[in-house]
């Protein structure tokens, strides 16, 4: 029998929101000798929580992050009669269907308090998951993936793969001929300036936050709102976010925000949509400070705490928060089941490391909106690459 005893405590087991479901496991040493538990390792829900549905089928949890030195350390001693508790937050996928489930702690390794032959297990705790209610809908963007974004790499068919650059030439030639037909036979003028207000509800579930950052585990939601302008004559797509500020900020600080955001997001990528702009449409992001008619309200404070609260003197994290306004998701820890690793990695893009530039996938809502507006599919390309 393991030295430790594990007991599950759940504050509210009925009608839980999967992404917010929280439970605490209390470990008590009932023996007369010190016991050990690697709390870093035991904090990974996927390693220790056994979740089953009403038919006793296992519910798969998002994978744990890569082990670090603390995961491999001997662990913390628990004195006889002593106890410690671990809290698990947001380990269930928010898309978990409603119904009854049960969960238990199950550690079958010494670091987790048990062994293969004699695992440490708690009693089962039953809980019910409620039906999810969607956020108010924004403008439906056809083809927008719920996230994480990023163009799917489609495998090339055998013929294009065989022909290589020749195939690319054939495709461009076909495009050019079609373009010529459109412009000279069907009198397509390429002079459209189209605009559309975009309002897209976004949400993300962060999980697997490491020790010290568990509070990040949870489900978050916001609305990506902007005015999208597709300007064919100038081959430019503009995403204009009107922001109303609440609080005190100097004109210099406001200008610094604007400069930082526009430097981070502008002229890095282009949209390749159709032959009106054969070299692509430059993506321009514009933050406009207004007194009314805003897309977003930003409260000015001493530090940046989320998309709606920016630090007056901050010019780094605000660019990351602006990414949320464009619909981009976070890219640190595990987001919607995709593990990105720690935040602020030296090589991470802006949604991982706010000091770095964005990646093409961060413009996916802009791309999808432009495609809906122009009536063509669009792809995102580096501004220096050919379409």
């Amino acid at each position: 029998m393991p030295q430790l005893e594990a007991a599950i405590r759940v504050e509210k087991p009925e009608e839980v929101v999967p992404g917010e479901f929280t439970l605490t496991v209390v470990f008590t040493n009932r023996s007369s000798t010190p016991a050990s538990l690697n709390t870093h390792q035991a904090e990974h829900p996927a390693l220790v929580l056994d979740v089953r549905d009403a038919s006793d089928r296992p519910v798969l949890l998002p994978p744990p992050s890569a082990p670090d030195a603390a995961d491999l350390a001997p662990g913390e001693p628990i004195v006889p009669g002593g106890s410690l508790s671990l809290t698990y937050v947001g380990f269930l996928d928010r898309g978990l269907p409603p119904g009854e489930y049960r969960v238990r702690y199950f550690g079958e390794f010494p670091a987790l308090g048990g062994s293969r032959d004699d695992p440490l297990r708690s009693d089962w705790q039953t809980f019910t998951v409620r039906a999810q209610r969607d956020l108010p809908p924004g403008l439906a963007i056809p083809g927008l993936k719920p996230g994480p974004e990023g163009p799917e790499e489609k495998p090339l068919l055998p013929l294009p793969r065989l022909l290589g650059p020749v195939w690319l030439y054939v495709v461009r030639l076909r495009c050019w001929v079609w373009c010529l037909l459109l412009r000279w036979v069907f009198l397509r003028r390429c002079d459209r300036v189209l605009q559309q207000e975009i309002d897209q509800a976004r949400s993300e579930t962060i999980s697997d936050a490491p020790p010290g950052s568990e509070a990040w585990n949870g489900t978050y939601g916001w609305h990506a709102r902007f005015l999208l302008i597709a300007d064919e004559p100038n081959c430019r797509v503009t995403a204009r976010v009107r922001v109303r500020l609440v609080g005190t900020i100097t004109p210099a600080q406001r200008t610094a925000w604007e400069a930082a955001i526009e430097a981070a997001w502008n002229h890095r990528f282009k949209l390749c949509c159709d032959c009106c702009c054969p070299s692509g449409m430059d993506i321009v992001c514009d933050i406009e400070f207004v007194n009314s008619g805003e897309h977003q309200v930003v409260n000015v404070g001493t530090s940046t705490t989320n998309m709606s609260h920016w630090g007056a003197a901050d010019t780094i994290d605000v660019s990351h928060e602006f990414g949320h306004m464009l619909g981009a998701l976070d890219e640190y820890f595990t987001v919607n089941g995709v593990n990105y690793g720690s935040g602020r990695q030296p090589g991470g893009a802006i949604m991982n490391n706010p000091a770095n530039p964005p990646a093409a996938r961060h413009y996916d809502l802009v791309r999808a909106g432009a495609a809906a507006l122009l009536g063509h599919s669009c792809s995102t390309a580096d501004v220096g690459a050919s379409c």
Partner: protein
Amino acid sequence: MIELAARLTVEPAEATAPGDFTVRCELHNVGDEEAAINAAPLSSPSLALEVVDAAGELVLLPPPPVPPAVPPVERLGVGEVRVAEFPGFLPAWTPPGRYRVRFRYLGSGAGLFAGLIVSTAVEFTLRA
């Protein structure tokens, strides 16, 4: 023994614009030992607050900022109070209705207070 208690107040109790509400959260050290706490969860309303509507449905807040590489540590002496204020915590797109908010501090980190401290929920009304 380290013991923390949470308290939350909302001002005003009624308003017509989501941005008019301000929450004040207080984390009291009510034990008889100094507490080392991870201050990161207090840095953002998205991390520290839980808002539900009249039907008990969670109101999702915008994502918190990218966490710092090293969690900020603060020391809370016996009887001391750490205050976090969040003006305009309610998202601008929140529809009118009655809501409840509570302060939820999830402490963690090596050598730091670890556990979940939750305040009682406070009701407020967003008028049309």
